[in-house]
């Protein structure tokens, strides 16, 4: 089995996780910028974090022969501090040319506030001006449906945005159609307690097809499973999906989207 992990917060994971992922067939890992679990106190904290994502973590992954890619942003959980958010957005361009940076993400909404929407739209503008891919986080639990609608409406109102260059992540049964019908890519995040189980992800593959769909573990410092993608692949095999179909879902689809960045390259 070979697969791409298109969304993982490896700065929060151990070297044992890297070893397990590579052993399971991981060919590349992509790391969106994330909330640290606490609010960073200044833009300097983000400077250090972006250095970690673009310098240190790729070196750490390389020890396991794993290409590491990154996305940059300030997370919507920190969007109520508009001054800090603007400082971070102003900081991002100096990192965009670094060799492992794929685009802007994971931007989006958390509690669906006006400030979050404003900061989201500033990130989208940044991505549009620099012609970068966009990776979007949709809110948790009761806030997901409303947040996904707000995000889709906002993107559709910006004529510069090509939906085929945007992935809207963490879809579930009540949001997946909304995202796919608008022409965006959709990500299914495999979590043990929230978001989506492997079985439900395979349900959605069977209902909506594999086009513009990927699966990720979004493993971070919370309850999450770094091997969730290969486990979901096993679930596909148990449900009579051919090996080629599994490969298309967990390897070829992520490559199809990520290659649009021009920087996404696999070893050998």
């Amino acid at each position, binding site marked *: 089995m070979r697969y791409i992990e298109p969304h993982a917060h490896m700065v929060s994971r151990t070297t044992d996780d890297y070893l397990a992922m590579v052993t399971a067939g991981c060919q590349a890992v992509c790391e969106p910028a994330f909330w640290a679990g606490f609010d960073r106190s200044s833009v300097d904290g983000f400077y250090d974090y972006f250095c970690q994502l673009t310098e240190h973590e790729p070196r750490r992954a390389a020890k396991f022969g794993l290409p590491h890619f990154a996305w940059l942003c300030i997370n919507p959980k920190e969007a109520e501090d508009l001054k800090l958010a603007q400082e971070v957005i102003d900081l991002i361009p100096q990192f965009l040319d670094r060799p492992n940076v794929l685009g802007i993400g994971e931007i989006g909404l958390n509690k669906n506030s006006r400030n979050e929407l404003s900061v989201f739209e500033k990130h989208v503008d940044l991505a549009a001006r620099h012609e970068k891919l966009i990776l979007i986080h949709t809110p948790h639990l009761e806030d997901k449906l409303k947040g996904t609608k*707000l995000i889709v409406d906002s993107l559709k109102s910006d004529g510069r945005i090509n939906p085929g260059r945007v992935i809207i992540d963490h879809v579930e049964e009540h949001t997946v159609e909304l995202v796919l019908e608008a022409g965006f890519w959709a990500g299914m995040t495999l979590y043990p307690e929230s978001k989506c189980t492997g079985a439900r992800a395979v349900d959605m593959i069977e209902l909506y097809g594999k086009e513009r769909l990927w699966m990720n573990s979004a493993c971070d410092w919370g309850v999450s499973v770094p091997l969730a993608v290969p486990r979901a692949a096993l679930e596909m095999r148990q449900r009579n999906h051919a090996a080629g179909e599994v490969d298309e879902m967990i390897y070829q689809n992520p490559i199809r989207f990520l290659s649009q960045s021009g920087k996404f390259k696999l070893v050998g």
Partner: protein
Amino acid sequence: MTRQKVTDLYFMEARAKLVDLAAFLDRVDRAEGQDDFRIKAFRRALLELQKPESQRAKGVLKALSDPTIKPIDRATTKAAAGAWPDAV
């Protein structure tokens, strides 16, 4: 997949979750106090399971969701509760 294969693959797991769900509601009912907005939403969402069409997961998720469309003025918390408080 045939219905038999789906049943063979998932019945025991679903059975365990069903018993856990029943035990959870029993535990809530035994406890002192009133249902908060989450339990009220939970009980409403359970009704989705009895609906005949095969959109139950979507129905449960929508029953637990904020149905409004306008952004709120300001986020006062970072966390989600699992159910929409204003539904009560």
